[in-house]
């Protein structure tokens, strides 16, 4: 038995672990139609709660306020505006991003909700609150019915 003092924490005994967690997440009834509209038609849809007088976007099958089932689908204009944004300089590994990413919360007229997504074709110093933006979708043949079918939002013409 040694009485040597350990100064290097790397020498403390520890066991490296790795939790493999593979899942498939069911998109559900609302997600199925919401993503299919983006994939097949390049269109945004929400669902309307008549009782509360609001349209949820992204679409969902129930109203979180009155708990009604939502069945009325409403097309939503893909042109939105930047409610707020942030410029990210760090990636998920904690490393400095070579090219900063611009993330925004995008609101759409006449709906309750919005989307958090990236902004593109714009420099960080040019982004402004209230800026009108539109989505840039993947070419139709490459879309797979996912939120990543939207590549980013860009300043609207």
């Amino acid at each position: 038995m040694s009485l040597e003092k350990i100064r290097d924490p790397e020498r403390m005994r520890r066991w490296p672990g790795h939790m493999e967690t593979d899942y498939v997440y069911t998109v559900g009834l609302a997600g199925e139609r919401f993503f299919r509209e983006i994939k097949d038609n390049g269109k945004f849809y929400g669902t309307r709660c008549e009782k509360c007088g609001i349209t949820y976007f992204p679409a969902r099958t129930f109203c979180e306020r009155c708990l009604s089932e939502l069945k009325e689908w409403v097309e939503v204009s893909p042109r939105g505006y930047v409610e707020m944004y942030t410029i990210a300089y760090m990636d998920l590994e904690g490393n400095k991003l070579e090219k900063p990413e611009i993330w925004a919360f995008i609101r759409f007229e006449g709906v309750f909700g919005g989307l958090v997504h990236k902004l593109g074709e714009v420099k960080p110093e040019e982004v402004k609150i209230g800026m009108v933006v539109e989505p840039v979708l993947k070419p139709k043949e490459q879309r797979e019915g996912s939120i990543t079918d939207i590549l980013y939002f860009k300043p609207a013409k």
Partner: protein
Amino acid sequence: MTRRVAIVGVGYSDFRPATPDVAFHEMMFEAAVKAYEDAGVNPRKDIDSFIACSEDYWEGFSIFDEFVPDQLGAVLKPVCTISADGMYGVINAYLQIRTGAFDIVAVEAHSKASDIVNMWHVMAFAFDPIINRPLKMHPYVIAGLEMMKFLKDSGNTEEHCAMVVAKNKKNAMKTPYASYGSIISPEDVLTSETLFHPLKKLDASEFVDGAVVIVLAAEEVARKLTDTPIWIKGVGWCTDTPWLEFRDWSRAVYAEMAAEMAYKMARIHEPAKQIDFAEIDDKFSYKELQHMEALRLCRKGEAGLLVEEGVTERDGDLPVNPSGGFLGVGNPLEAGGLVKILEAVLQLRGEAGKRQVPKAEVAVTQIWRGVPTTSGAVVVLGRE
């Protein structure tokens, strides 16, 4: 249901940014033994029920709650684990005692954040897997967005946020369990590296390891155990919609509603006047300001002004985070709420040493579960 409930014991392990020498069980054991000693109870005989608060993903276990009884003295006793911050555990212990089923309940929460190798990935698992996670955004993007929205709508400024950081890190210099105390200027915060504009490196708390155990007792038992029971005067908790798309980004509505619930119970009508000091969630600098406004410690839009005028300093009229908060102590994951309560108990007992606030009769403590959540709890504590 008129049984009053008091905190009769607190204990904590050595809080440090990294603890490569001790396993989580050993940190829990240290905190538990100290808390039971402080309360003067034998865990194997006297404690009726145990509540531990943990999150499988922070621990790297499945069904982590199975791993808590032995180091708490809770083997073959009623044990339950709450997958939430420790403050929820205290609230549940309070309710368990109020039912009359139990007289003494112990609550535990801890952080072994330094064991988590890829923290940001683990945290990103809290995003909705279909709408948000495929975008591969850093969880602090949410803090950057919320900070911009809150500052714009409330009129508070980045300078006010920087003052919060300087204040809390200064307070932490006198807190023995704080790891991130320092004397810095607001200017140092403003010129620190921008991570998620407008959020800068020093606007965000760093993680810390540690365990806290709190012992609660019914009034008749509490009076026998201690001369300085600290009473639970009100509790509240609330969760907003989890969706980034549907939440309120401007106000901390979860904290407003949790506070109203707790204030009603504690008969606090004018928090700014009736409360002597606050230990509230400051995982990010702007969150302290947002939570001050949510808890009605000031009027909407005036939190920054109070900080600027020194009102929230330790010797000010309404000290906020005299412990140094998470910016000064470190963010101990699910143990956060227990650190807030620990500090409030020490202050209310008059045992806070060099960091004692001048007047400590009634305190409000508050916790938020961090990004990307919209959950939080409030506990009002008092000497009477």
